């Protein structure tokens, strides 16, 4: 029997029958902005199963605007509970520059593989935060850096070229970095979240599909909110598979080349 298309599976609400890696998720179960239903780690993994999300890159809520150490500990605990499903990212607070490198060392020791930056929630801008030592650390250790907002494309291009060992992921949907993503090998664009009419088609028109990774922002946003626009998009399933999982698998396994 022919396998149903990705769109057909989504229309039925069936788990997607291809590799799906969510590059942008939050765990922890609590956040000051809103109540999170079904937010326990095991409940989240069960819901990933229901949708067909195989793996997720996870960062903490606590690290966004509260105790980053607590947040990173919670992520490390979640990863140790679900090692085949979760890739842990350390969250740094841009107001505590003296803690960045020791915290990264501690987190790497706990098995975390990436770094999440979200200065907008910490009243700081990435470009003004003197994060070069963090980028160098990430480059040296082959870590993934995902930022809520990187600032000017030229800034991102500069740090990515200078720190070729790290992978830089643009955390939210944007077309402003298209040129940088297409040009610079270690820069990727996350889909999180293509809400506008035809947003996915527009993204693929401007950005090489091999450089786009799926991100849902669960347990902040509903995963279907960001997954369905990819599944329904007017593009071949082969491109959808790249975006949904294959590209991020390359990033996670350190194989960045676009071949």
């Amino acid at each position: 029997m022919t396998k149903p298309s990705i769109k057909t599976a989504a229309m039925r609400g069936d788990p997607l029958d291809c590799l799906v890696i969510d590059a942008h998720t939050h765990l922890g179960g609590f956040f000051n902005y809103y109540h999170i239903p079904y937010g326990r780690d095991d409940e989240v993994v069960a819901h990933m199963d229901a949708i067909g999300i195989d793996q997720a890159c996870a960062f903490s809520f606590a690290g966004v605007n509260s105790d980053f150490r607590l947040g990173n500990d919670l992520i490390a605990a979640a990863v140790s509970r679900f090692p085949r499903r979760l890739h842990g990212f350390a969250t740094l607070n841009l107001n505590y520059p003296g803690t960045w490198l020791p915290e990264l060392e501690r987190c790497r020791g706990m098995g975390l593989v990436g770094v999440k930056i979200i200065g907008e929630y910490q009243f700081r801008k990435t470009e003004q935060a003197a994060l070069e030592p963090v980028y160098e650390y990430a480059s040296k250790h082959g870590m993934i850096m995902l930022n809520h907002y990187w600032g000017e494309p030229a800034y991102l291009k500069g740090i990515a070229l200078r720190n070729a060992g790290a992978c830089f992921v643009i955390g939210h949907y944007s077309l402003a970095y298209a040129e940088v993503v297409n040009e610079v090998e270690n820069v990727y664009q996350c889909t999180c979240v293509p809400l506008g009419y035809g947003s996915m088609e527009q993204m693929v028109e401007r950005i090489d599909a091999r450089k786009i990774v799926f991100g849902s922002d669960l347990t902040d946003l509903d995963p279907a909110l960001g997954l369905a626009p990819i599944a329904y998009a007017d593009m071949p399933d082969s491109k959808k598979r790249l975006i949904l999982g294959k590209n991020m698998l390359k990033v996670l396994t350190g194989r960045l080349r676009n071949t």
Partner: protein
Amino acid sequence: MAGPRFFDLTCSFGIHNRSVPEPLRTVEGLLGEMKRYGIGRALICHAVAMEHSPELGNAMTAEASKGVRNLSPCWVFLPSKVGGDPERSVDRMLSSGSRVAKLLPQYYFFDIAEWCMGDTLDVLEEHRIPVVLDFFSPSFGDDLVPWAEVVEVCLAHRDLPVIASEYRYRSNRRMYQAMSRCDNLMLDLSGLWLYRGVDSVCKEFGADRLLFGTRLPYRDPSSALGMVSYSTISGKEKAMVAGGNLERLIKGVRI
């Protein structure tokens, strides 16, 4: 297996101020997109009614949906002093075939409070006409719903089916509390973006409190469709959210 029948609560067409794709400017184009996404029926509102003048736009909505089996007109109201006598406005709405009212306080710069809309809401309540309190704005923003005012409306008009639209994200504690206080308050799905909102709202308040909407032509309808399809509620509940609730409300209108 056939999925639920989708009936879109928040659909508009025509030339909006913010550019929308060409196919979505006409009824024919809209119908084509609905077919592509598997949306069987839509409540529509002309862009002129939403953004410029209900007096002109309501007639355009009614004209566009006349005789089109799967489109139903949605009627936009203004405060009575400038929008006309509520009884006469409701008569005009009902005779056009419209069974759902919409208030757009963001676009037309008025309040939904009793002093401003109480007389209109009284008449809508008398007819059990569902009213969408629509706080949509094409620009970015968090929770756009003024929950205190919405709760006041619901408590002052307990027989009025009230649907709050554009709650979006970054806060939900007010929404949960408002839903718990007002049995006649429902939510439009097109702005329900937070994690597992469909499952949570249906579990806490019942599947009869949530209505499917896409916010075409601004948003990609797949998001709302996916949130229903991938929710863990039962098939029966999905059918209610997808379209059953809106059909029930329309049937409940007293003419």
